[in-house]
C-alpha cells in the first residue's frame, strides 16, 4: 500500500499505522474564538502536493510523528521532519 518511514521502526506498511491527518497548530482553547476553533477542527488544506501530516505507529513503537509527503505521488520527503512525543498535532 504505502511504506511509511517511521523514525523509530524504519519503513513500515501504512496498515501498521493510524493516519491522524494534516498537521495543524492547535489554537489555545482558552483564547480562541469558537469560529477559529471550528476552523481548526474541520477545515483541511487537502493539497495535491506536499503535505505535513501526523502518523501514529499503531503496531510498532506506538508513537506519533510528523512526515511530509507528496499526495499526488505518495513520495515521502526524505525522512521524518519532526517528532511530536506528546501526540498532539505539531
Amino acid at each position, binding site marked *: 500500500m504505502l511504506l511509511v518511514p517511521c523514525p523509530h521502526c524504519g519503513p513500515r506498511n501504512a*496498515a501498521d499505522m*493510524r*493516519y491522524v491527518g494534516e498537521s495543524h497548530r492547535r489554537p489555545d482553547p482558552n483564547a480562541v474564538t*469558537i469560529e477559529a476553533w471550528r476552523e481548526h477542527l474541520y*477545515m483541511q488544506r*487537502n493539497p*495535491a502536493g506536499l503535505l505535513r501530516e501526523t502518523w501514529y505507529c499503531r503496531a510498532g513503537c506506538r508513537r506519533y510523528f510528523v512526515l511530509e509527503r507528496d*499526495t499526488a*505521488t505518495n513520495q515521502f520527503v526524505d525522512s521524518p521532519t519532526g517528532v511530536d512525543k506528546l501526540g498532539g498535532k505539531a
Partner: protein
Amino acid sequence: MWRDVPLRTSYDVVIVGGGVHGLACAYYLATNHGITDVAVLDKGYLGGGGSGRNTAIVRSNYLTPEGVAFYDRSLALYNTMAVDLNINVMFSRRGHMTLAHTDSALRTMRWRAEVNKLQDIDSDVIGPDEVKRLAPSLDVSPGARYPILGALHHPPGGIVRHDAVVWGYARGADHRGVELHQKTEVLDILVEGGDGPDGKGPGGTVTGVRTSRGDISAPIVVNCTAGWATLISDMAGVALPISTRPLQAAVTEPVKVFLPTVVVSGSLHVYVSQTDRGELVFGASVDPFNTYNIRGSLEFTEELAGHVLELMPSISRMRLLRQWSGLCDMTPDYSPIMGFTPVDGFLCDVGWGTYGFKAGPVSGEQMAEAIATGRTPKLIEPFPLSRFAAGDLVGEKGAAAVGH
C-alpha cells in the same frame, strides 16, 4: 449521442465537472428552468471520474431525517429515469441488505428502520432466517467468525448502470441546447472584489473561468467535481473541510446468477452485488490516508477476499477480473456540501464521499433550482458550507459509509 461544438467565450452558467452531478444539473437547468446557455466542462471525458468508478448501488435508508428525505427523492428520480431520459439505465430494484454482526449494529439497524418508516421508506430489520431466504449463499450459522444476527432490509434499493445514467443526462442536456466540452481543463476561476489575494475569496464575485482552451466569462460557476473539489474551490478562494481519499473496488469473472440482492456489511467493510452479466462487484471502505493517487493495493484485495469469504464461503474458487479505484471527497459529517458559497456566483455540489452516485439526480435537480431561483431549496438546506463554521453538522456517519 451529443454535438461537438466550438467553445464560446461566454455562457450564463459554467459547470465544472462532466459527471452525473454536473450533467444532471445542466439537464435540469434546461428542462425545469429553461436555462440553456450552459457549458459543462470536463478535463477528461464525460463520466470518467466517480460516475464511472462507483459500485452503482442506490438506496435511501439513511440515518438522519435530512439524509433520508434527500436520498429518497433521488431514488424516485431513478425510478422514472429510463422513461424521462429515454435510455435503458438497467435499474434493477433488487433490494438492499445491510448485515448486523453485533448487538450494537442490530440496535443501529433498528434505529435506522424507525427513522426510515417515519418517512414512509420501505425499510425493516429482518432475522437470520429471512436473510438466508433472500440470499441463500450467505453463511448465517451462529458459529461464523462474524455471525449474521440480522439485517436492515430495504426493498426499494438496487443497482443502476452508471454509464447509461451519465449518457442519458448528457444527451438530454445536449438536446436542449447545453454544450458539453470534454478535454477542457479549468485552470483558474476568475473572481473580483474578494478579501483574499488577487481579489479572490469571501466577498468576491465570479466573473468566469480560465481553461486550457481559453477564458470564458460567466456570472455563475458551479463546482461539480469529485476528487478535485478542494483544488477547484481553492481557485475561487473558498476553503473546504474536505479530505480526498481513494476507494478501491473490484469485479469477478461472470457466473450464473446466485445473489439476488445487494449485500452490505459495515463491520467487514464490504458491499457486493451481482451484475446482470453475472459478475460480482465489490466495494470497500476508503483507503486509510489522504491521497490523490489512485494506485490499487494488495492489502485491498487480500482484505476484501477474506471478508467476502466470511460471508459467502462457497465462492472461494471465484477469480477477480480486475480492480480499480476512484477519489472520494470526505467531509467531517459524511454529508455533502451544496449550494452557495461566500463567493457570489460560485456554487458547490461537492463532498460526496462514497455516496455521490446515488445522489446524482436529486443533486442536479436541487442545484439547478438554486441557480435558477437564487435561493437554497428546502431539500439541500441541511448541507451548506456554512454549517461547519456554525457547528451545525449533520451526523450521517452511521449510515453513509462502511468501515467505522
